[in-house]
C-alpha cells in the first residue's frame, strides 16, 4: 500500500479523488484544463527530450537492478560474515564503503539489501496490477451492480490507514520476504482497482468503443483491443509510483524492525542499524550509504514515472 499522497501524481488521480471526495469533482475541470493547457501552451513540446536527469534515473535503477541480480557473482564479501579484526573501518581498498560495528562489509550489505526493496516493490505491484488492474479494467467497462460493490469495497479498504493494518498482519503472520511481498502486493489491489477502473470508465463511453461494439465486437475484444491500449499509459505510470510507495512502506517496516529479520540486510534495517548504538555519532556513514541509495532509487522511480506521465498525457490528448 503506497502512501496515498502518491496518488496525486497521476493523471487519473483527479477521478480517484473525485470519487472519495465529492468536492474534488470541481477540480476535475481544473485538471483537464491543465492538460489541454500543456497542449496549446507549446511549453511542453510533443518531442520534448526526456532529458539528462531522466537517463540518469534510468541508469541508477539499472545499476541497482544489475547489482542486485549479480550480487552472488560479483566479487563481494559475504554480507553476514563478521570480521572482528576489521570493526568500524572507513572506506578502504578491502572494504570500499568500510565496515560496520560487527566488521561486516558495508558494500556487500548494501547490494544484498537492495534485493529486498526491489523484490517487494516490483513483485508487490505485479500482484496488485494482475488482480486489481484486471478487475478495474473490466469493472470500469461493464459497470453494473458488481462495479458498485467492488468500488464501495475498495473505498472501505482504503479507509484503513495502511501502516496500522500492515504492522498488525506482518507481526501475526510472520515477517518473511514472501509474506511482506504478498501483504503489500494485496494491499495495492484496491488502489490499482480504483485508478484503472476510473480510467477504463472514462474510455467506456467514447465513440471508438461504441463504434467497435456496433460493429459487433465481443466484450473481450473491446476490453483488450480498444480499452486496454488506452489504459496502459496510466497503468505504467501509476505502477511506477506505486513501486516507490511500496518500497517506502517496506523501508518503514524494516526501520521499525518488523520486516525481513536480521541478519538479512535490507535498506530499511541498514538505516536502522546505522542509528542504533550511538552509531550516528561514531560512524554516520553506516546510515548514509543506504539512506542515499534509497533516496536515489525513490527519486529515480518517481522521476521516470513523472516523465512518462508527461509523455503519455500528450499522447492521450492527441487521440
Amino acid at each position, binding site marked *: 500500500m503506497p*502512501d*496515498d*499522497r502518491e*496518488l*496525486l*501524481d497521476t493523471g487519473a488521480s483527479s477521478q480517484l*479523488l473525485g470519487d472519495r*471526495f*465529492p*468536492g*474534488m*469533482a*470541481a*477540480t476535475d475541470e*481544473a*485538471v483537464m484544463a*491543465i492538460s489541454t*493547457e500543456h497542449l496549446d501552451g507549446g*511549453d511542453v513540446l510533443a518531442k520534448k527530450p526526456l532529458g539528462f536527469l531522466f537517463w540518469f534515473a534510468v541508469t541508477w535503477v539499472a545499476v541497482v537492478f544489475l547489482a542486485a541480480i549479480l550480487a552472488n557473482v560479483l566479487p563481494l564479501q559475504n554480507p553476514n560474515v563478521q570480521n572482528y579484526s576489521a570493526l568500524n573501518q572507513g572506506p578502504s581498498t578491502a572494504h570500499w564503503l568500510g565496515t560496520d560495528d560487527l566488521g561486516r562489509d558495508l558494500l556487500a550489505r548494501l547490494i544484498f539489501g537492495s534485493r529486498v526493496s526491489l523484490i517487494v516493490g516490483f513483485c508487490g505491484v505485479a500482484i496488485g496490477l494482475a488482480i486489481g488492474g484486471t478487475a478495474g479494467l473490466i469493472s470500469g467497462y461493464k459497470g453494473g451492480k458488481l462495479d458498485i460493490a467492488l468500488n464501495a469495497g475498495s473505498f*472501505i479498504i482504503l*479507509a*484503513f*490507514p*495502511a*501502516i*496500522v*493494518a500492515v*504492522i*498488525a*498482519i506482518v*507481526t*501475526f*503472520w*510472520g515477517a518473511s520476504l514472501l509474506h511482506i511481498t504478498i501483504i503489500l502486493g494485496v494491499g495495492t489491489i484496491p488502489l490499482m482497482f480504483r485508478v484503472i477502473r476510473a480510467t477504463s470508465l472514462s474510455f467506456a463511453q467514447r465513440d471508438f468503443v461504441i463504434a467497435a461494439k456496433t460493429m459487433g465486437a465481443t466484450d473481450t475484444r473491446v476490453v483488450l483491443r480498444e480499452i486496454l491500449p488506452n489504459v496502459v499509459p496510466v497503468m505504467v505510470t501509476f505502477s511506477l509510483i506505486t513501486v516507490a510507495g511500496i518500497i*517506502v*512502506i517496506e*523501508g*518503514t517496516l524494516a*526501520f*521499525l*524492525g*518488523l520486516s525481513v529479520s536480521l541478519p538479512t540486510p535490507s535498506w*530499511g534495517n541498514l*538505516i536502522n542499524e*546505522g*542509528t542504533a548504538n550511538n552509531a*550516528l555519532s561514531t560512524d*554516520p556513514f553506516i*546510515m*548514509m550509504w543506504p*539512506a542515499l541509495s*534509497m*533516496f*536515489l*532509487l*525513490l*527519486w529515480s522511480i*518517481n*522521476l521516470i514515472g*513523472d516523465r512518462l506521465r508527461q509523455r503519455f498525457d500528450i499522447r492521450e490528448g492527441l487521440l
Partner: protein
Amino acid sequence: MGKYLIRRFLQLVVVAFVISVLTFLLVHLLPGDPTTVILGPNDTAANRAILLKQLGLNLPLWQQYLTWIGAVFHGNLGTSYLNHQSVSHILATGAPVDLELIIISQFIAFAVAVPLALVTSRRPNKALDNVATTSTFGLLALPPFVVAPILVAVFAVGLGWFPATGYTPFTQSPAQNIHEMILPSVAITAGSIAVYYRLLRSDLISTLQQDFITMARSKGLSGRRIMWRHAFRPSSFSLLAAAGINIGALIAGTFVVELLFVLPGIGYALVQAVEQRDYLVVQGIALVVAVAYVLIQFIIDFIFTIVDPRVVRE
C-alpha cells in the same frame, strides 16, 4: 446540505463497522496464541484451557466480537494482558504526542508550500518555478526513515542545536517540549511540502487562466490581492482533500520518528504490543486509529460543504 451530510454520516457508520470487524478478525484469525505469551511456552494444556476461558477466547468468534464491541461502546477498549494497562490509558498518553507532531509538521508544510506556490505559479516555467518544482520533487523521495537519521546526524549530533532523544510533556515545559519536537516534526514534513506545493501550483496555474482573474486584473486589482482573494480560494479545495489523504502517510511517519527520537506515542506502544503479541492492545489501537482516520475524512467533507457549496448540489 443536511441530506448530504446525513448520507456521508451513514457511509461513515458503515465504514466504521467494517473496520471494527476487520480489526477483530485480523487479530483473531491470524496465527499466534495469547496464552503462550502470558504463561510462557512451557505451561500445561490444562492451565492454558483455564486461561482461555477466563479471557473468553473459547467462545464462538461472533460472541467474542459482540462482547468486545459492546465494551468498546462503554468506553472500555480492554486491558493489556501483560502490563495490565488499559488501552484507553495507552491511547490517552500516546495520542497527544502524535497529534502535536502532525500539527507542527502540517503547520510547517503549509507555511512553506502555500507562499511558494503563490509566488511560482504567477510565472510558471521560469527559473524560480523550475528550481522550486525540481527540489520539491526531490522531497517526494525522502520518507521519514531516510530524513530523520540525517537530521539527527546533522542537527543533533553534529551541530548540537536540538536534543537527539527525549520527551517533555507540553504542560510541563512548553519551550522544552517544542524544542524537542522540532526535529521529529520536520522529519515527517518533507513529503507533505512536496505534495501540497505541486498540487497548489498546478491548480493555481489553471485558475489564473480563468475569466474572473482576467476580470480582476482589468479592474486594476493588485497582483497580491488577486492571488490571495481571487485565485487561492478556488485552488485550495484539492489542497484540503490532499491534506486529508496525507494523514495516512503522516501516521506512518510518526511511528518512525517516535522510535528514533524515543517519543512515547501511539506508534511506539503499537510496535511494542505487536512484538509482545499483546492482542487487545493491538486491536484497540488499530480500531481507534482507523476510526479517527475515517472521522477526519468526514470532517474534511464537512468543511468542503462550507467552502464549496457546489459539492452538495451535485
